[in-house]
């Protein structure tokens, strides 16, 4: 959404127009959902949190001063929700099962059996996704959040540094190490793919 349209949408939402909230949901929903899935490891929690963040948005939109970036503001709310959810849950459910919903929205078992995406590709995608979730789980919480906020919220390193109240250098060092760990996992999966062929 271009900045001018976004400003108009925010004003309309503040005026209480239903369609403006729907437009915000359509514009930011997919990225917020991806962020929640990777932050909690649960697609069910991700959808619940997406609803939750939209409800918070309705209540807190009058506080938004339009000086900062809207995305950053929304993702700050989202990251607070994730932090609260993790604190409450204590245990992050990062495992998937065949009964679990696949990233495509279908049941994973059905995907493998060929009713969703082609069985082999679906299974492969799930394996990589699962491996990535496990690698994310092994990261410390700030590093994981920094990587996810950088990717999904498109935050600058300075903005991330403000959130975590630390120097940019520290943020970049953590992101660098985290990305290296995740890349290693992906490369290992690529190699196992090459081995199968």
């Amino acid at each position, binding site marked *: 959404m271009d900045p001018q349209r976004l400003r108009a949408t925010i004003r309309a939402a503040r005026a209480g127009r239903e369609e403006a909230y729907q437009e915000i949901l359509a514009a930011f929903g997919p990225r917020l959902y*991806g962020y929640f899935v990777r932050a909690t490891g649960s697609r069910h929690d991700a959808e619940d949190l997406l609803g939750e963040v939209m409800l918070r948005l*309705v209540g807190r939109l009058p506080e938004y001063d339009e000086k900062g970036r809207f995305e950053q503001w929304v993702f700050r709310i989202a990251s607070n929700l994730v932090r609260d959810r993790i604190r409450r849950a204590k245990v992050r459910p990062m495992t998937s099962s065949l009964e679990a919903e696949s990233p495509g929205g279908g049941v994973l078992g059905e995907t493998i059996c060929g009713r969703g995406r082609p069985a082999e590709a679906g299974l492969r995608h799930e394996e990589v996704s699962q491996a990535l979730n496990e690698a994310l789980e092994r990261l410390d919480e700030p590093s994981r959040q920094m990587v996810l906020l950088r990717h999904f919220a498109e935050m600058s*390193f*300075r903005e991330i540094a403000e959130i975590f109240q630390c120097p*940019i250098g520290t943020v970049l060092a953590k992101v*660098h190490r985290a990305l290296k760990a995740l890349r290693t996992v992906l490369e290992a999966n690529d190699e196992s793919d090459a081995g199968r062929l």
Partner: protein
Amino acid sequence: MNPMQEDYERAGRWLDGEEIDLTPTQLALAGEIAADAAKVGRALEVPLPGGALHRVSARLKRARRRGRARPMRWVAAAAAAAVVGVGLLALLTGGRNRIEPAEYVEWFLQSPSGELDARAALLADELAEYQVQLTLGEEWPVEVTVKGLEQQLGEFILEEADPAEPSAWEQWEESL
């Protein structure tokens, strides 16, 4: 490559878009981070399941409807409380004053307890008049009449009295 804190600091600012000069180490560091971010970023993407936006949207609509209805419920409750309050106030102050004394007497006489009290008062008056006549010695079968009146009055009081308690008439008789 063994970057220091300052290398990270400058590489970070450069990646944020600041136009600063980087050393070869810093440039290599920034390049590596950007490449890793691109590769990992592609793998991090999660497609939104079909129907998810629709479900969230429906939840949002429901919540907003409830949010709009809540203040209306408070307004309705406040209005009802105000009506009851004004009614009570009118009853306790203005309402009572608007009744004229004559109307009140009429209402009192029409009420069951008012009728009974009026009958009792009439009998008592008649009794007092007969007692005066008896004292003055007029030729009139006063005694019989007085006794009859006393009996009527006694029966009347006994009808209204609590059987467990001694009647006012009995108490009066005992006091004589």
